[in-house]
């Protein structure tokens, strides 16, 4: 035995291992013939150590140990690889570009999405969100709001009437009256809700949704109204939007103002949405008429206030580009699914 023999074994081992490739059985045979506990070549080589003269033992032993380590390491590496090949045999690679499995996603109606966005803006400004009945009496819907019987303004709000003197509210304003009847100023509220008018064409639906705001305190001014509406409309649309107040008329506010925003679609160059005017009419507003305060028992000498209202359906149509009001009430799940 000599270290030359060790070199021969080393070369033979590497050749055999190479030949075995990733065939697990062949690799196992290689392992048994070289490192097997009973008849492995390494045993034979180890036995050869005893036969050597003592001066050669040291060098031979060292070389033998190196050979052992090499054989074990190489076998280990190859066996890990062959194992991996066995495990993944028969598994196809994943097409990671396939679409993910859909998760059931629900969505709110766009009108409610818009409503909650607007509520949120006013809640942050300290306003309460109030509610009231859709079936109203004439007092709260009209008379308390300075619209006596036979007032021409009733023409603009064609009303559905119900038995026993009830009617379907034509606006959310009756809730203003109800809140002022039951609570002392300062009052700041917004009132969203469903309203009804006896009117049906491309631009009018007999059922629609509004949100109404009211703020009453001592010393409230037209400037307060203007700043509040600007703050709100900037939060709802964007800070770049220009807000314009024009004198208008509502029976329950004096003075009144129609409020426009600069067209968000054409940068005021003129487009279909703004009918070429560069402005979009967005809400109605004004200072609460003292007659309203008197009707609901608020001291009109001491308090002033402002009110405003806007159509939620119209805002939703504007914000999302929905062309037809009636699509909102058709019950078509394809509409809502777009908002999931």
């Amino acid at each position, binding site marked *: 035995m000599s270290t030359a023999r060790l070199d021969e074994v080393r070369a033979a081992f590497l050749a055999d291992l190479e030949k075995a490739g990733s065939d697990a059985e062949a690799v196992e045979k290689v392992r048994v013939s070289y490192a097997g506990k009973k008849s492995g070549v390494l045993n034979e080589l180890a036995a050869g150590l005893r036969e050597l003269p003592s001066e050669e033992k040291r060098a031979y032993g060292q070389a033998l140990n190196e050979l052992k380590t090499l054989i074990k390491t190489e076998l280990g590496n190859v066996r890990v690889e062959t194992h991996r090949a066995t495990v993944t045999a028969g598994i196809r690679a994943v097409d990671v570009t396939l679409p993910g499995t859909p998760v059931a996603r629900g969505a709110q109606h766009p009108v409610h999405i818009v409503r909650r966005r607007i*509520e949120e803006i006013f809640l942050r400004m300290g306003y309460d969100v109030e509610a009231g009945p859709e079936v109203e009496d004439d007092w709260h819907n009209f008379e308390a709001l300075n619209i006596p019987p036979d007032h021409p303004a009733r023409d603009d709000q064609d009303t559905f009437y119900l038995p026993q003197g009830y009617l379907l509210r034509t606006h959310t304003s009756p809730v203003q009256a109800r809140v002022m009847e039951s609570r002392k100023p*300062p009052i700041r509220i917004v009132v969203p809700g469903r309203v009804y008018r006896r009117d049906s064409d491309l631009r009018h639906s007999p*059922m629609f949704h509004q949100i109404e705001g009211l*703020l009453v305190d001592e010393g409230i*001014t037209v400037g307060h109204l203007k700043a509040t509406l600007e703050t709100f409309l900037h939060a709802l649309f964007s800070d770049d939007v220009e807000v314009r107040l*024009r004198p208008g008329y509502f029976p329950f506010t*004096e003075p009144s103002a129609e409020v426009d925003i600069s067209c968000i679609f054409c940068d005021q160059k003129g487009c279909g949405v703004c009918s070429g005017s560069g402005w979009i009419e967005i809400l109605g507003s004004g200072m609460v008429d003292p007659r309203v305060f008197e009707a609901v028992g608020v001291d009109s000498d001491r308090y*002033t206030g402002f009110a405003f209202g806007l159509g939620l359906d119209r805002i939703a149509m504007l914000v999302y580009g929905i062309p037809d009001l009636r699509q909102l009430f058709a019950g*078509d799940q394809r509409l809502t699914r777009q908002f999931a």
Partner: protein
Amino acid sequence: MIFDSDWLTGYLDGTPDLDTLAKRLTDCGCLVELREKGDGAEKWDVEVTTNRPDAMNHRGLAREAAVAVGGQLRPLDFELSECDEDATELATIEIADPALCSRYVARVIRGVSVGPSPGWMQRRLLNCGVRPVNVVVDATNYVLLELGQPLHAFDLDLVRGRRIIVRPAKAGEKLTTLDGEKRELDSSMLMIADGEGVVALAGIMGGADSEINDDTTDVLLESAHFDALSVRRTARRLGMHTEASHRFERGTDPEMTATACDRAAALIAELGGGRVCRGRIDVYPRRWEPQQMEFSVAALSAFVGLEITPERVVEILEGLEFFPELEGDQIQVNVPPYRVDIDRLPDLYEEVIRHVGYDAVPSQLPVLPTTPGHRNPNWELIDRARDAAVAAGLNEVMTWSFIDPETDELVGSQSLCPGEPLALDNPLAATQGVMRRSLLPGLLSAAQTNLNQGERTLGFFEQGRVFDLDDAGPHEHERLGIVLLDESGDAETRFLRLKGVIECVCEKIGLPALEWKRGGEPWFAEETGAILETSDGTPVGMAGLVSRDIAARWDLGPDVLIAELDIDTATEPALPRYEALARFPSVVMDMTVEHEEGLNYAKLESATRDLAGEWVEDLSYVTRFPLPDESGRVRTTQRLVYRHPDRSLTQEEVNTEHSNLREGLAERLGVTFA
């Protein structure tokens, strides 16, 4: 209202270009909505608000325009020459009800030849959308558009007895109006009568019998002031709306009647070749009383939030002809007779603000206590329901609050709607005649719409109110309705899918534990529907597969699942309380019970819970299947989780517990074990 731009600017000194004029008018509250090319002038569609009848004529709008552009309003300039014949000798006027007619002015023009009016007048009328008729009628229409005073011309020869009497109609009186309609009158309506009968509807329309015609030579011209409410009520009762009634309803100027009468008479004489008889016949039983108001400029400035100088206020109010007088900080004004809208200080403030412009008002957010905003509990509730349904994967839809009364009868036959339907007095269509007592009809129509659109599966909900009526009055209830369609699985599987959604939603909304009982006809077939009740037996919901009849009625397949929940009784769910996490392992045991089909799961589960020892931490349903033989028996598998809080349980301990439970169940329910 349509205005002729040339006519309008004719009253103005120092007129800027039309663009500036249109913008300034819009800024002061007279929105110029549309400008079109007309004959010799632009046609302007100006939105004059209902409270401003004084600006619904060219001179009135010009007054606004003069203040808006800082120009001057030219005086109304015309010449009236009268002949010697005394008008008061030719006709008499009597007002029987001065409350409804405060003034009646008339003039007589004789020797008129009724031909067409001149081109300039016709052009202006046509630009304003008024069809020329003849010189007399055109002159009255012209003055209406010019001064806002409605006029009426009678053929004096056809006024019997040459008498005009303003009085309420007698029941049963009839009049054929100028439009050819025969109208039956009642005692609430104000009339113009002659010596023998009715000749005109006061403030609305004249009668055909005394109409100006080709043979007319003598004209009696009426310029009156009628009570707004009376005209409005009569016009509404007769279903009429005319240029005259539109203005009288909103309020006209009693002082303008004389001027307008003079103006029209002068035009008729000038253009129709007649002579105006001397003097007006002017009956004025209730004189207009001037109203004075006084206010402080400082108070105005404080209200606006802008320092406005007294000089500017005076300038504006002078332009609007309020004749302001400034003394120190106080301004006293006289409200002009045509300003029917000015009654209180804010009305007056508005006049100043309109012309100062909202642009000039500095924006200043109000300062209030920094309390947080609260949402009304009703909104909290319904948005909780909305969120729960969305979290369950459903899409929200909205359907109409009013439904077909025939459909409503179906609704009446089930128990969620205790009251009577609330019927509309004046629905738009018979099929939208009653307020819904249930969301289901609307949702079924929506299901049909979606399927017609080619949708294969349905998963949507509606949150909204239903309405009913009882002795205490109308009631509104918040509801949640659900529609599901997914064709996989048998009826029970699909029903349980709906039930799973409802259970999840109920928990999130905060509804109490509900008992599910078979029922819900006619919406559901007997085998596949359920009524949901609270522990005291109040029905608060129903759910199931639509019945064959309902499916046929809405043209649906039989696989559609629907549900409706009354959510009014929900209360906000309590905050979750932390429970200590288990430290020792559990032992899970399945238990398959064989029993009669009639034993429902609720009974089995409640008995199992009752008999299970203290170590049973959780009990759940796994599956159920019928035995393949003819025995009619079924097997139900439940899963039990055993756990001890303080130590590990041995399998032997669990086995003992489990077999005790089995014996207990066998004894109590007569079930066997597979």
